[in-house]
């Protein structure tokens, strides 16, 4: 039910593999602390892999917006990868789909970051 997060490095990009639910409480906190930790270490090219995120609520949406804005304000880039249909639909109805840089293929997503 809760969210799990693990990170890996590919060509200078930090890929964060998330699974579970990004909701008010633990899920949102895990996402916030993960992104904050990466930025504090200078890892500013962040790709959030949401392929195994099966549920997200308004708090989770807010956390994604916060992560995106925080990364941008620190001179970084944060992109989203592998949205499930539920998450895709949620970002569509909240008009955030075009705000985020959403990718469907990991290799292409990694290459898209500024060198």
């Amino acid at each position, binding site marked *: 039910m809760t969210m799990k997060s693990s990170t890996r490095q590919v060509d200078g990009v930090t890929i964060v593999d998330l699974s579970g639910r990004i*909701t*008010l*409480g633990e899920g949102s906190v895990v996402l916030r602390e993960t992104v904050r930790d990466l930025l504090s270490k200078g890892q500013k090219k962040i790709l959030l892999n949401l392929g195994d995120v099966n549920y997200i609520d*308004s708090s989770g*949406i807010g956390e994604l917006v916060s992560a995106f*804005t925080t990364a941008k304000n620190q001179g970084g880039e944060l992109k989203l990868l592998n949205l499930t249909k*539920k998450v895709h639909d949620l970002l569509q109805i*909240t*008009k*955030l789909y075009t705000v985020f840089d959403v990718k469907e293929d990991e290799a292409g997503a990694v290459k898209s970051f500024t060198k």
Partner: protein
Amino acid sequence: MPADRVSYTLDSTLETVNNAEETAGRMATEAGFDDEEVMKISMAVREAAVNAVLHGNAYDPSKKVTLAFERTTRDLVIVIKDQGKGLDASKIPDPLAPENLMKTSGRGIFLIRSFMDEVEIHPSQTGTELIMIKHVHGNPADSKEAPQ
């Protein structure tokens, strides 16, 4: 067909939010909604419970949240009440407005309205009552009443 009604009195905790969501999913499934509709109903109830627990009762242990489900032949009616100061829906900014798009909160009521067929918000000095209605589709009772 007689209406089925069940109600719960819940503490102002995060556990209540999760319980409300799970109960809504079960009720919606039992009412015959498909998986996608069940997800929308349970998510709407989760957002309503978040509003009640956080914004209404502000996690105050002395304040309760009541959650009621009523199944009629045509609708699933869900009512959630808190004991807060009363939500003024007219003061909630439009989360789709360009100036609000990047805000980190304020999408709960919008999502509830998106996922349910009818939504009524009744604020008072003793709390807010939120009524959410989802019409039952493909109900046998509907087809009996349909014109031949």
